[in-house]
C-alpha cells in the first residue's frame, strides 16, 4: 500500500461540478484506491459526491490529490487528465 500526493489545478470550465465529481468516484472505484482531495485544510474522500462538490473547486483553483492503494501513480494521472478537460459541458 503506497500513498502519493500531487497538487493539481482545475482546468474544467465549470469547475469540479457533479459530472466531474461522479467521475472521480468512478476512478477511485476502477483503480481500487482510496482517493481524497485536500484543500483549504479539509480532507474529503472522493466516494462522496456531495463532499467533493462542497469543496467548491471552481475553474482555476488548485487542490492536492491524495491516493492510497496498489498503484497510486496511475490514479493520479487519470485524475489529472480529468481535471484538465477544458471544454466539456
Amino acid at each position, binding site marked *: 500500500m503506497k500513498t502519493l500526493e500531487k497538487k493539481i489545478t482545475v482546468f474544467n470550465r465549470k*469547475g469540479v461540478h457533479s459530472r466531474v465529481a461522479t467521475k472521480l468516484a468512478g476512478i477511485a472505484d476502477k483503480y481500487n484506491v482510496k482517493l481524497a482531495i485536500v484543500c483549504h485544510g479539509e480532507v474529503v474522500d472522493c466516494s462522496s459526491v456531495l*463532499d467533493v462538490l*462542497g469543496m467548491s473547486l471552481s475553474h482555476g483553483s488548485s487542490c492536492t490529490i491524495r491516493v492510497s492503494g496498489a498503484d497510486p501513480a496511475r490514479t493520479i494521472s487519470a485524475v489529472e487528465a480529468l481535471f484538465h478537460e477544458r471544454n466539456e459541458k
Partner: protein
Amino acid sequence: MKPVRNNNIQGTPAEQPATLYGICASPGIVVGKILVLRRHTRKAGWYHLRPEKIENEVNRFLQSIDGAEHELVHLRSQLAEDLADALSIIDSHILMVRDRMIVDRTVKIIRKRKINAEWALAKALNRIKKRFNAIEDPYIRERYADVKQVADRVFGILSGRAGDSFADVDNQIIIVAHDFSPEDTLRLRSESVLGFITEKGGATSHTAIVARSLGIPAVLGIEQITRKCATGDTIILDGHSGRVCLNPTHDQVEQYQEYSRQYQAFSDDIAFFVHLMPETIDGLRVKLTANIETIDEVNTVQKFGAEGIGLFRSEFDYFHRQKVSDEQLFFETYKYLLSAFAPFPVTIRTLDIGGDKFVEHLPVSNLRIDLERNPALGLRSIRYSLREPDLFLMQLRAMLRASVYGKLRILFPMISSLDELESANQLLDSAKNRLLEKGVPFDPDVEVGIMIEVPSAVMMADSLARKVDYFSIGTNDMIQYSMAIDRGNEHVAHMYDPLNPAVIRMIKRTVDAGHARGIDVSLCGEMAGDVMTVPVLLGLGLDELSMRPSALPFVKRLLRCSCSSQLTELGDKILQCDDGAEVRDFLNSYLPEYYPEEFGGR
C-alpha cells in the same frame, strides 16, 4: 406530483392574453393545452421513536434508499447511450442517493435523536443545503437542486407515493410545474408531452440539459407560472426566445404555428447544410449572408451558418435605445457585431429613416413641420442623413472606431445620383479625419458600398461602380420605384411582382455594371430568401445573397444542387421573357425538373 384541475386560486381572469418571459432552456415552439402539476407538499411530520423501533426505522430508510437507487438504475437502463448528457446526470444522482452525507448522516440522526426517517432526512438535507449555500462558484452551488431532487425521490418512497403521475396523460399537452427533476424530464419523453414550463431552474440546470438532449422545448424560471394559469388553458411556448403566451389570440397562434413549422422543417433535414460550403456542384462560390435588425439575432445567424451580415438595418438599433444620440452606444453595438462575425464581413447600412419609416420617432425639427405628401419620394434615407450631418457623422465615427474589431462594410442606402454618393463620401472622409486627429485607430481600407434601389442608380451603375467597393441591390424599393407600385396600397398591390422582367433586367444591368468594374454585387431584398426566385438570382450572376437568417439553409441547399452553366442558361432564358406571368410559367416547368427535391412535389 399530481395534476391540479383548477388552481386558479386568486380568481384571476385566465382568459386574458399575457406574455411571460423566462429562460430559454431548450429550443422549439409549441402550442397546446397545459396541464399544471404540483408537487405534494411533503409535510414530513416529526415523531419520536421508542427505543425498540429505532432499528426498524433505520431499515425503512435504507430500503427507501435502495428503492430510489433501483428506480434510477432502471431509468438509466431504459435510455439510449446517445443521451450522454442525460446519462451522466443520472449517474451522479445514483451516487448522490448513496452518498454518506445523505445516508450515514440520516441514519445517525435517526439513532441519536430517536426520530422518524423523514424528519432525519430533512435535517441531513438542511445541513447539505447550508454547506452548498456557502459555495462561491454559482454553477457548483446550483447543484444543490440535484441533491434536492434525489432527496425528493427518497421522500416520495418513504411516504408511499403512487407511481408515475403523468403516465395516464393522453392528449398532447404542455406541462407546467414548479420544478422538474432531470428524471421527471426523462419520463416526460413521450409523444404526449409537447413541452414544459417551470418556475425554478435556469439554462444550466440539469433539467434544461436533459430537455435539450431530448429535444423537448422548454422555458424555465417563470415566477408564479403555476398560479397564473390553469389546466386546460392554451399556451404558446417559444423555447427560442424564452417567451410564453398565455391564452393567445387567434393571430398569435397562427403566427407561432408558422414559426414552428419553419423551425421543424429546418431542424429535420436542413440542419445538415449549415456547415457545408455555399457553392454549386461545379464549385462556383456564392456568399450567403444574413439580414438582421438587432444584435439579439447574432446567435441565430451563426447557427444558420451565415458568412457574415449582408445587411444590418441600423435604424432599429438606433430607435430602440433609451438615449438616442450616443456615439458610444452605436460603437458598442457595432463592435459586438464585428467581433462576433470576424473574419466574415458585417455590412452596416447607415440610417434608413424618413419617408414612412420611424417618422413618429424623429426629433421635431424645421425639416419635418408637415407630413410629407409623398414620403416614399421625399426626405428619407441617405437624404435625411445628409440633411442631419451631425447625426450621420456620429454614426460614421462609431462604425469606423468599431472597424478594428472585424471586417466592416459601410453601406449607404437609396443613393440616386453620383452627387449624393460624393456628399456621403465627403462626410465619411471628415469622420475619418476627425479620428485621425484624435489618434483613434480605424481600418483605413473599410469597404464602402451603396444600395442600388432607385432606377436612376441602375441606369448610372457603371459610373457609380467607379466610386464604390460593392453594390447591394435592394429589391423591395427597387420594385416599388421601378414599377411605381406601393405594396401597401390595396388597389395596386397585386401588380407588385418581383419576377417582372423589368426588375430582372435591372438586376442584370446592375450586376453587369459592377462586374465590368470588378466589384461584387449582392442582393438583400426578400427575393434573396425566396426559394422560387433564388435560382433566377443565381442565374443573373449575383455574388452574394443576403436574407432572413432562417432562409439560409434552404438557399444553401438549392445552391449546392445547382450547376453554374445551367444557372446562366436559366438567367438568359428569364431575361427573354416578356412579362411576369411568362417568367412564372417558365419557372413552374423548369424548377421541378432541375430541383425535384424542392419543387417536385408540387
